[in-house]
């Protein structure tokens, strides 16, 4: 199992953050895991019950590639094996989930940067995000907006899946892309992370 969770750093930034931290601590307590890194050193923890390192390890590391995931207060980052940034997110609330061997974190009130080759390709805003550090996939829902950091384009969708390894964004439900005076409405879409090229289904483009 890979579980990605790091430090609280002892800084509480507002009530929402406090609630988020308490929620995470509560969940961790339920799972029998350690809380803040400062309070309990992961190395001292029972390794059979408390996987301390956020990155994938052992066999999983070999399959999925080394990935270091850290939480710093209300910020979470993923870097690949070469140290290049993959994902960086700020959030209001977080909860750690366990699904099989995956290290899954559920975030709420998310503003994130999606990176490609270590450079930011687009920015994501979503009310709810489920991020899996093992597969490096991000599922966003509740009305998602992605804005390209390279091209003058943005897209909205009800839900979205980002497959960072494939440099692919998949969105569905009330899709609307905008590029200046051009807009495209569609049922679903598939695009590269930077929104350079996009494919829409049941779509209509309009120029005004």
């Amino acid at each position, binding site marked *: 199992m890979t579980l990605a969770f790091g430090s609280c750093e002892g800084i509480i930034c507002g009530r929402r953050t406090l609630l988020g931290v308490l929620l995470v601590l509560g969940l961790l307590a339920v799972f029998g895991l350690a809380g803040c890194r400062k309070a309990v050193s992961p190395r001292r923890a029972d390794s059979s019950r408390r996987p301390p390192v956020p990155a994938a390890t052992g066999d999983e590391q070999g399959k999925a590639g080394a990935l270091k995931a850290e939480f710093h207060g209300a910020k979470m980052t993923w870097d690949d094996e070469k140290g290049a940034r993959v994902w960086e997110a700020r959030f209001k609330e977080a909860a750690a989930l366990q699904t099989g061997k995956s290290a899954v974190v559920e975030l709420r009130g998310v503003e994130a940067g999606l990176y490609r080759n270590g450079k930011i390709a687009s920015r994501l805003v979503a009310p709810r995000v489920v991020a899996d550090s093992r597969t490096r996939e991000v599922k966003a829902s509740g009305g998602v907006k992605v804005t390209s950091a390279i091209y*003058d384009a943005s897209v909205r969708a009800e839900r979205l899946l980002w497959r960072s390894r494939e440099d692919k964004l998949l969105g569905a439900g009330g899709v609307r*892309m905008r*590029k*200046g*005076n*051009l807009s*495209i409405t*569609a049922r679903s879409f598939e695009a590269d992370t930077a929104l*350079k*090229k*996009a*494919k*829409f*289904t*049941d*779509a*209509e*483009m*309009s*120029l*005004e």
Partner: protein
Amino acid sequence: MRKVAAALALIAALGLYAALGRADSYSIGKTTLSGDVIVFENTTVTATGSAKLVHISQSSPIEPGTMRLDSIQAKSIRADLVEGKGKTLTLKEASASGGVIIEARRADSVTDPSGQTITVIRNVHATAESAKLSEGRDTVLLTGSVVVKITEPGRAEPVAVIDGQNVTYFLKANKIEIKGQPGKPAGLTVTSKEGKQK
């Protein structure tokens, strides 16, 4: 009190300016392109599967002596856009291929039996294998087994039927140019109110 009145007057003036300013910035129409699948890359948009390009004009009725393109339907339509002032994208060119159907209207000036000149709006329905719309030149080039039917309100039979390998619409000039091929001459059938002429 005076300050409040001045502030209100300023807000009203700004509102009026904004309203008038917007009226100027209206575009002359709206272009839509739909399809089962649309692929967007840079300034090229390609629609496939029941593709349809529609131009909705916001201007008044068609000017006499001109043609207006209403829609193009085809299996596939590719729209090339160009970025203008203020990054505004406009349609530079559109190419349609496979089962092309084009709907247009022309405003013809005719003399009625009483000797008065009136404007008759005629529908121009065309089918072709492919078509190319050049927005800048205001022309539509239809190629491959082209059949154009011009109909008039109140008349069951088409006013004219054109067939050829290449047909060009000149929208601003309200002109249709037909070209045949060796062994496949172009045809024009005009139906007068009295009978058919070829």
